[in-house]
């Protein structure tokens, strides 16, 4: 999927490539190994990419699943296409409009509340960024979700340690250790390597189920392409043709 995202990057000048690369294994594990889909149940699980700027990871996944067409992918951010920089409600496979940070978890709590009211066994998966956890709205619902007895929420934080103006750990050193704060709000928490599919899978599968779960996934921004890893400019830029070839060859070596 990294290769596919690189291909699309050559059709536009900017595409938030590094934020998509950092959460790719998280998105893939949730969709491929954890979620129950339409063909398995009448009430499928839900996926919300609360860090909407990582949309390319979700679009590439939805393309692999056949929900989005290759044709649509090539019309990314172009007139006549349906895919923009941020996931838009109403697009196939997109269940909430995101792009403004700190909205996804509140929506997930509302969904989980409705599911609980209807007696449905349904899980809402939310992928968030570490910078996003600086939004107060996140902690409002963090405090509330366990009180409402909502157990079917699995949130994964893409802890890539970067935000627009620098390292998250330098801007907010008191944010760490994250898992302690999550537990203090009544959630079950687990720390994993966010590029290790097995660790992500095991953390979700081994949860007790007594409370909502937040998986704190340590990741590398721009993961997979050496010159992009932890270099802020790749938050937004697309590679030029030479950089593109270099990135492809690095991915092929792996």
């Amino acid at each position, binding site marked *: 999927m990294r290769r596919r995202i690189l291909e699309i990057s050559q059709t536009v000048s900017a595409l938030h490539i590094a934020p998509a690369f950092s959460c790719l294994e998280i998105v893939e594990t949730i969709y491929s190994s954890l979620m129950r889909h339409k063909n398995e149940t009448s009430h499928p699980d839900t996926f919300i990419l609360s860090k909407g700027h990582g949309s390319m990871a979700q679009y590439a996944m939805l393309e692999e699943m056949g929900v989005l067409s290759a044709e649509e992918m090539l019309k990314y951010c172009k007139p006549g296409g349906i895919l923009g920089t941020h996931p838009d409600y109403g697009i196939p496979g997109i269940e909430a409009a995101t792009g403004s940070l700190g909205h996804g978890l*509140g*929506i997930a*709590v*509302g*969904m989980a*509340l409705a599911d609980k*009211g209807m007696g449905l066994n349904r899980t809402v998966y939310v992928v968030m960024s570490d910078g996003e956890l600086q939004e107060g709205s996140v902690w409002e619902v963090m*405090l509330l979700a366990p009180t409402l007895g909502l157990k079917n929420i699995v949130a994964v934080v893409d802890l890539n340690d970067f935000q627009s103006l620098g390292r998250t750990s330098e801007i907010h050193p008191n944010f760490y250790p994250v898992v302690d704060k999550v537990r203090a709000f009544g959630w079950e928490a687990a720390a994993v390597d966010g590029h290790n599919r097995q660790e992500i899978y095991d953390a979700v599968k081994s949860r007790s189920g007594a409370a909502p779960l937040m998986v704190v996934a340590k990741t590398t921004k721009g993961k997979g392409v050496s010159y992009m890893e932890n270099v802020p400019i790749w938050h937004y830029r697309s590679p030029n043709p030479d950089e593109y070839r270099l990135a492809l060859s690095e991915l092929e070596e792996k």
Partner: protein
Amino acid sequence: MRDTFARTLYQVACQQPNVYIVVADISPAGSMAQFRQEFPDRFVNVGVAEQSMIGICAGLALRGCKAFAYTISTFAIYRPFEQVRVDLCYQNLPVTVVGIGGGVSYSTLGGTHHAQEDIAVIGSIPNMSILAPCDPQETEAATWACAAHNGPVYLRLGKAGEPDLTSGAPEPFEFRKIRKIRNGSGACIISYGPIMKMALETAARMESELGGNVAVYSAHTLKPLDREGLARIMSSHNTVVIIEEHSERAGLAAQAKQVGWDYGVRTKLHTFSLKDEFIHLYGPNADLLAAHGLSADAIFKAVARD
């Protein structure tokens, strides 16, 4: 109004098992006791956390539920403005945001609790509808209209104890349609919300001191505004008076002037709105309104002078 709203919402919830109310810990929510008692799973108090109130309503709506968010107007829309804009309006979800204390009805609580520019602010978001009933009867009808509406609504209510103003109205309440609540053919007054009481007092005084029959209309649906109805009414009365408990910016008065221009209406138009000011006055609602230039006496004198 808030008691009527609570009673009506309970009736709605009895009929519709997917109706939820999400409140943000304010004391008027006490009027919801019956709802809370009988449907504890559909009554959610998020605490002092308005952003989550709106986000949760959006999530409920995305699962096919009808959600009502409920708190004081200022906290219902200003604090979680972006959640209202993105979660509700951008996604066009059937959620009603109920604001208690529209205008300056919390007249002893100060500017932090005054929703005096709420219609201007919330009305500028695409997809949002606005309902502002004038009395308990209209509140009941408006609540049912919100439950039936397939998009976001801001329901602007007063407080408690508002008198019945419309049970003898010649026309019924209909969502989107400006409504005649008092017959007359000469001058007319158009208003909405609890300040309608002042409009009716002004109409009675105009009739007794200036003669003629003064019609009164309730423009309860501020968005989408009944532009054709408004233009027709303004064209068929030689004097039109608009009274509103809202800023002069982008409320009914400002919109009526736009409609008048667009439809080529030629009539004498007097508008009375809240000033574009924070007024630091604590006391009865009537005193604060008077400080904004709004009293039946002041309005009558201004109209009579002309």
